[in-house]
């Protein structure tokens, strides 16, 4: 373990650590542009220069701290006068052509070039030549292109092509005229393009939808978690005047590393949609939440009296927080209602339950750990569509040489070469077991593929199984666990990674005992045994396979209560509508596909965004007792209102739901 001295302070590092990383361990941030922990060091910008005062032959003098290994006995100075002067010159070089854009540039306030220029000590411009300029490209609706600001750190193409594996962004030209762009203008193809805005150290790539809507220091920036898939990637919500303006990736050393996908990054517009319902509705007419809840209570009571508590069904959601799922589960249990039904059908329910049952600390791998795998086996998993960031993690494993094998009926695509064994979903388990050697039944026509998979498994030491739950038979997650056990028995360190159908599918699994499925509820409605439906945060039409049948069933209901943040859909108008708060307003605990419970803090208090009230003008001078449009409430508190039971609050949940008793909210990350 090399021990070295940086700026008169000692630090011990693991072999292979670069000086720039060793310095970071001492909280010394050496200036850098092209170096990025995820993208590695390439030595292009030359700004991370330090003076190595003592070290092995040919490592002394001015050195690039990102390229040089920290070695035992080295003495390094980051503050050495020559090194500092060198860095100042490099920054001066980078600023030769930089446009005087700060006053109008969105990057201002979180611009690495601004930071390095000030801290590097470069000030007065003495270069008298002309600045080179470029024409920008329209790269689509999500990213703005401003090439004049470029300092040629190459981060964008390194991320886009090497890290993420998409090939429509490149570096063209030569010398000081190099240009980063597409072959021709057009939308960037990579579903991870938004990360360019995060990693670009200047304002070349900035977020387009939020352009000119606020400067960095205008925003309230809060840590949050994305709820668009089961991964639970960490985000930063930048909000202003009661709306989310943009989101950035938030570093997580375990879940998502440095990046997020575009779906998660841009998927917030719903929260400030102009037609987002902010008041409760009774029979289609606005009402106060209290009145609507009271009306709902009495109508539910009438139905219960006439037909029994089982005539009321509750459908919950895989995107509801644990508090919400728990509150409604509790309410259903206490009142004898059916549900909450969280899963589409028996297959989905059993598959997710199988995944939850299969959670095992010794096999569970995080996405960051998955990058170290030396073999990836995808069982009915389609990362790019189901959990995009998984595809990025798999690509890093592939770049390090891990073969990728996918057993899937669908023509899935991945941003790296992989072997695809196309088989019906029903056969995935059999084929997997045949390759493992735990089964003899396998279709003869793919004997070669199975052989190759077996070979690959034999040769591996850290195989990871990625098991989907979207199209696979219910038994597959358990087969995946058995596979991991088998691999472990043959001396390997296997990993297991599930893709689940929602951000809190794991939570739903915890509450799914004895609950019906959505398919069952629809059948019950059709048979007449269910006459009243409480639909909580679930867009049924999104996933139910037969729209007409669903419309018919909803039309049959005597009572439809909808709780959601979005406008209800379908022909059947809900009798009662209760507006729910979004995750930005209420926060909540979500358990991701790894079984990692993450608490999301609210980002701002709810209410109509100011931009929709003032039309861009100065905030109004009316003084009202409450925030306009602040009707929506967290869905779990609406459960309390609906049942009339003030005890339906999260704190009391652990008594009602033993599954939660081991969770201590304050200790969750």
């Amino acid at each position, binding site marked *: 373990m090399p021990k070295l001295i940086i700026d008169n302070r000692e630090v011990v590092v693991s072999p292979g650590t670069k000086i720039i990383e060793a310095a970071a361990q001492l909280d010394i941030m050496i200036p850098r542009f092209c170096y990025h922990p995820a993208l590695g060091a390439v030595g292009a910008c030359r700004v991370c220069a330090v003076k190595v005062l003592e070290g092995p032959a040919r490592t002394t003098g001015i050195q690039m701290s990102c390229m040089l290994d920290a070695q035992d006995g080295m003495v390094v100075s980051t503050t050495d006068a020559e090194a500092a002067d060198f860095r100042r010159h490099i920054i001066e070089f980078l600023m030769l052509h930089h446009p005087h854009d700060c006053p109008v540039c969105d990057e201002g306030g979180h611009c690495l070039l601004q930071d390095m220029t000030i801290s590097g000590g470069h000030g007065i411009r003495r270069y008298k030549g002309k600045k080179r300029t470029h024409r920008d490209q329209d790269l689509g609706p999500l990213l703005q292109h401003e090439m004049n600001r470029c300092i040629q750190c190459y981060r964008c193409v390194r991320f886009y092509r090497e890290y993420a594996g998409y090939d429509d962004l490149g*570096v*063209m030209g030569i010398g000081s005229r190099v240009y980063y762009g597409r072959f021709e203008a057009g939308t960037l193809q990579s579903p991870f393009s938004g990360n360019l805005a995060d990693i670009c150290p200047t304002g070349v790539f900035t977020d387009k939808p939020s352009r000119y809507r606020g400067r960095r220091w205008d925003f309230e920036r809060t840590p949050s978690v994305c709820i668009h898939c089961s991964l639970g990637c960490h985000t930063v919500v930048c909000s202003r005047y009661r709306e989310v303006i943009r989101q950035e990736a938030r570093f997580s050393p375990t879940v998502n590393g440095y990046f997020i996908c575009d779906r998660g990054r841009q998927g917030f517009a719903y929260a400030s949609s102009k037609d987002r319902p902010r008041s409760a509705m009774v029979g289609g007419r606005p009402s106060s939440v209290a009145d609507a809840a009271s009306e709902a209570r009495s109508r539910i009571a009438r139905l219960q009296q006439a037909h029994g508590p089982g005539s009321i069904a509750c459908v919950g959601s895989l995107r509801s927080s644990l508090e919400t799922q728990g509150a409604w589960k509790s309410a259903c249990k206490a009142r004898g209602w059916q549900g909450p039904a969280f899963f589409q059908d028996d297959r989905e329910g059993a598959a997710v339950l199988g995944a939850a049952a299969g959670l095992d600390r010794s096999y569970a791998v995080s996405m960051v750990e998955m990058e170290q795998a030396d073999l990836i086996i995808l069982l009915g998993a389609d990362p790019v569509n189901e959990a995009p960031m998984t595809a990025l993690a798999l690509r890093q494993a592939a770049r390090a040489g891990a073969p990728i094998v996918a057993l899937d009926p669908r023509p899935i695509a991945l941003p790296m070469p992989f072997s695809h064994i196309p088989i019906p979903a029903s056969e995935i388990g059999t084929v997997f077991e045949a390759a493992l050697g735990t089964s003899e039944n396998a279709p003869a026509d793919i004997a070669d593929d199975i052989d190759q998979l077996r070979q690959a498994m034999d040769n591996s030491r850290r195989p990871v199984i990625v098991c989907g739950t979207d199209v696979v038979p219910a038994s597959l997650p358990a087969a995946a666990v058995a596979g991991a056990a088998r691999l472990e028995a043959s001396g390997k360190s296997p990993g297991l990674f599930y893709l689940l159908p929602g951000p809190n599918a794991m939570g739903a699994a915890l509450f799914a005992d004895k609950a019906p499925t959505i398919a069952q509820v629809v059948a019950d409605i059709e048979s007449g045994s269910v006459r009243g439906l409480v639909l909580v945060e679930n867009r049924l039409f999104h996933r139910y396979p037969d729209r007409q049948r669903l419309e018919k069933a909803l039309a049959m209901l005597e009572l439809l209560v909808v709780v959601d943040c979005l406008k209800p859909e379908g022909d059947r108008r809900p009798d009662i509508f209760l507006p729910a708060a979004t995750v930005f307003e209420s926060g909540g605990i979500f358990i991701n596909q790894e079984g990692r419970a993450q608490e999301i803090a609210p980002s701002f208090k709810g209410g109509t965004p100011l931009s929709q009230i003032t039309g861009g003008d100065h905030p109004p001078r009316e003084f009202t007792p409450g925030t306009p449009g602040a009707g929506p409430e967290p869905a779990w508190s609406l459960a309390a209102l609906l049942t009339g039971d003030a005890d339906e609050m999260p704190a009391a949940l652990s008594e009602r739901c033993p599954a939660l008793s081991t969770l201590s909210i304050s200790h969750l990350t």
Partner: protein
Amino acid sequence: MQTESQTESLEKEIQAAEHPRELAVDVMAAIQARDGYLSDAGVAEAAGLLGMSPVEIEELATFYTFIYREPVGRYVIHICDSVVCWMEGAETIGEHLMKALGIRMGETTPDGLFTLLPVCCIGYCDRVPAILINKKAYGPLTIGELDRIIDGLRNSDDANEAAAEAANPKKQVLKR
């Protein structure tokens, strides 16, 4: 001019290559020789032949001096402007050509015959001042010799063909 069979043999070469992309410069040069320059369509064609994306080809095409991404004349005149040619009259050669052809550096004559470009040391420092015309070296040059060479090219069969093509509307236009 590149014939179709030469392009076919290029395809065979690509198929036979263990790493097709090692032929990238050859493919671009072949398409350029056939079309006169490497157009946007040419880039896409090269990408298809090599199994690379268009921007990957563009990255190479825009790096190299002898891949032309804009239409050039039938005769591309490269005037060496490195230090020895510079000492021995390259500027005079350059100015004379610009006047004689009526174009500036980087431009092509309206009849599509001549393009003037600067080039760095072509390795004919013992025969300065030297120029290349379609990669053929001429030097040491006097103004008189230069005029004779240009006139000779102007009146050659090749030139008449080029003039006809310049009037032909099928000539591809670069679009950005």
